[in-house]
């Protein structure tokens, strides 16, 4: 990613904020997430028209519309494949993906491992609130066992997905977590994720004020969150990162869990190499049928 296209300070956070008024409930964690994204983008300084921001469906998936980037609010669960098509088609774009835990780990769950192993230079922000908010309070893939919701009135019979362990297990090269309760830390991990040369995953504990549990709200988060940096965690240690990730659901760590010191090549780098080797080696487009002449 060429992130040094503009002189620093040319863009400020509000340059990335659109006129559209968010539909979110007052006090929703997603307000903080979008603010952190404005800040991170301003720090990076790419002009909005060089950014493609893709989402699926859900409360949080409204987020591209609240930015001035080229946005794509697509269908439920399919943001990652669409974003990969965009990035392969034009690797010069800064491509961001955002959505909820249901979008990413339930209906779109099959796309996460493949986005990781292809390693396109895309940043994926999941706003994890352990509930389906837009459809008015059903179980989500990160809801805890026993949780009573509109769709589990006698309590959930399932264990939750652990998003951090999930992506670490599939070999993601950049894994971080943040919360709108720590705005500076959140903006910093998003910025770092965008700057990381490859697929970056950021889980954001973004509480649902309407259907979420009291202990997931920002006030409660602020009391329990712990900075990985202050804990002395070495983010190049993948096994240690997985160890810490096992505390998902009981502890709230913020910062970078894992940053691969030797990230694998990106898909688009492979495409570029192939173009360098093969472009122009075929017949002209208008002569393409000549390859079917038998001899």
């Amino acid at each position, binding site marked *: 990613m060429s992130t040094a296209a503009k002189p620093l300070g040319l863009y400020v956070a509000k340059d990335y904020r659109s006129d559209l008024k968010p539909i979110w409930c007052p006090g929703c964690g997603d307000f903080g997430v979008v603010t952190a994204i404005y800040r991170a983008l301003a720090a990076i300084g790419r002009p909005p028209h060089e950014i493609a921001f893709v989402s699926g469906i859900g409360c949080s998936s409204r987020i591209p519309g609240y930015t001035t980037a080229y946005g794509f*609010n*697509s269908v439920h669960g399919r943001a990652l494949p*669409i974003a990969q098509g965009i990035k392969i088609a034009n690797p010069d774009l800064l491509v961001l993906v955002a959505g909820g835990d249901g979008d990413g780990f339930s209906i779109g769950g099959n796309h996460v491992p493949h986005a990781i192993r292809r390693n396109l230079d895309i940043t994926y922000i999941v706003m994890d609130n352990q509930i389906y908010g837009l459809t008015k309070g059903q179980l989500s893939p990160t809801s805890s066992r026993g949780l009573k919701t509109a769709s589990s009135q006698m309590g959930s019979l399932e264990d939750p997905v652990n998003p951090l362990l999930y992506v670490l297990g599939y070999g993601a090269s950049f894994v971080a977590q943040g919360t709108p309760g720590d705005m500076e830390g959140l903006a910093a991990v998003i910025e770092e994720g965008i700057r990381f040369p490859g697929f970056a995953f950021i889980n954001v504990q973004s509480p649902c004020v309407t259907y979420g549990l009291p202990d997931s709200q920002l006030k409660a988060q602020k009391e329990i969150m712990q900075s990985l940096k202050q804990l002395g965690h070495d983010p190049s240690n993948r096994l240690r990162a997985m160890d810490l990730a096992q505390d998902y659901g009981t502890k709230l760590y913020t910062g970078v869990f894992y940053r691969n010191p030797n990230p694998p090549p990106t898909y688009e780098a492979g495409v570029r190499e192939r173009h360098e080797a093969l472009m*122009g080696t075929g017949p002209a*487009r208008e002569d393409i049928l000549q390859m079917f002449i038998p001899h």
Partner: protein
Amino acid sequence: MTNDLVIGMAGSGGDGIVAAGESLITAAALGGYHAIMTKSFGSQIRGGESSCRLRIATRPIYSTGGTLDVAVALNWEDFLKFGAELPVGGHTVVIYESKTGVQPDRLPLPGVRPAASLPVPIGDMAKSMTGTDRAKNTVVLGLLAGWFGITHEGILAGIRKRLEKKGAEVVEANKRAFDAGVEYAEQHPLASARTMALPAEGKQVKLLVDGNEMCAAAAIFAGCEFFGGYPITPSSEIMHYLSREIWKYGGSMLQAEDEIAGIGAVVGASFAGKKALTATSGPGLSLKTEILGLATIAELPLVCVDVQRGGPSTGIPTKSEQSDLFAAVFSAHGDAPRPVLAPMSVADTFPVTVEAFNIAEYYQTPVIILSDQDIAQRKETVDPIDTKRFRVIERRRPNETELVEYDRFRLTESGISPISHPGMKNGNYLASGIEHNEHGAPTASGEMHSRMNEKRLRKLAPLKRRRDLFLVQGDPDAPVALIAWGSVAGVAMEALELAHEQGLKVKLLVPKLLYPVAEAVYQDFLASVKRGLVVEQSHQGQLFRTLRMFVDLPGGMESLAKSGSNPILASEIVDRLRAMALGMQRKRAYEPQPDLG
């Protein structure tokens, strides 16, 4: 002499039956003949029985023909597994391995007395010439060349090309096996000679290609720069070809984790400004449906090829059917019209694919190409195509003036709004599956929803005037008509010729544009028509029923529809047409004349 030869061959997996067919059709293409070849296999992934059907003619042909002129059975058990595909009749010359022990007058073909029944020691000849019986297929080629006069040099060229990797010794041995076959044929002449005549237009070399590769090459010609898809029979060859060729033209591709991701990436690439293609078959079309609807509402161009096979669900993956028409036309939820096109041959796949991209880009819409297994996987000789005749259309991008206060979904007179893409300054907008206003902002306004639906429908209306997307043949005043599409249209064309030979007044309409239904084109065509047939390979007669939704068909129009894997023959179409024509004459004779006194 003969002008038209249908050859069917079957054996077990290792016998090289299909390779022999490839050699023959290569020779035909080099010699300027018209030829079509289909292959058919048992359901085993390797080994098992295999067969091929090859038709060679001196004039243009549009189908693989009916009953075989020549049948080759390396063993009877495998041959009989392809009963419906390799029908033997009274004019068939049957060549078979004598080691099977079957007497010439006791062939295991109940109720059939073929014109000739020729046991040949094929395996022994191969063994004595090459030291192994693996060259049985080469002996067969020699026999066919000797008895039917297909250019020896061309066949030998095909054999050489196929075996050159195995070394000069193998090539030489196979040449001996071929010569032995030719010699055997010369020593045992047929009772009535059936030597192929020379091609009508001389020996102009033809292209040799199948429908899938033709489609993929046409996509590159049309400017396609991205492919996303998932392996599925019988469309995968499109992805195979592009995985080799697309890079040479600056394009790129993705084998996605599933069908949905495949078309998802295509929508993404289109949003990013590139022409993009996905290819699939029935089950994949079902999975892609939601994102096809997204492309409709977000007004993003893309082309989706559906190579139809037997359905529903897994159905019969290796056999052709035309039963995805309803799904192609109607499957999205909401009011989601999308153009649907269908080629009628391998050659026709080129213009139809180019036009699919042109329509997608011009109208900013997903376009479905309904190919079918028959066209997609058969090899066909194709007359050289002058690509300069084809226009390649680009999507309408906003100019500087339009980028001031840019509205992505501006309600224009044509319904087409200039489309920007990421990277274009001042073109920033929100693409969405949510209903939106002209600017792109989400809306739940009933009035705006209605206006946007109207826009998305209205912009496609000019397609209904595209008479170039219809083929009309035969007597313009004919009272009897045929309508057919896809690979079956080729059979209908041959039925039309047969009907004319029998003095029937018949005409034919082949729609390449299936949706939107061009009512006026059908009404004009049907003006003279009292009776007729809509011929297609689907159990319900999906085109017949779709037409009845939009067009006032004459009461005498009937459906001739069969499930996939049941060949539709030109002769049976003509039988129905003749009965219709006779019925009309009789009806007229019996009708009391109105009393004018």
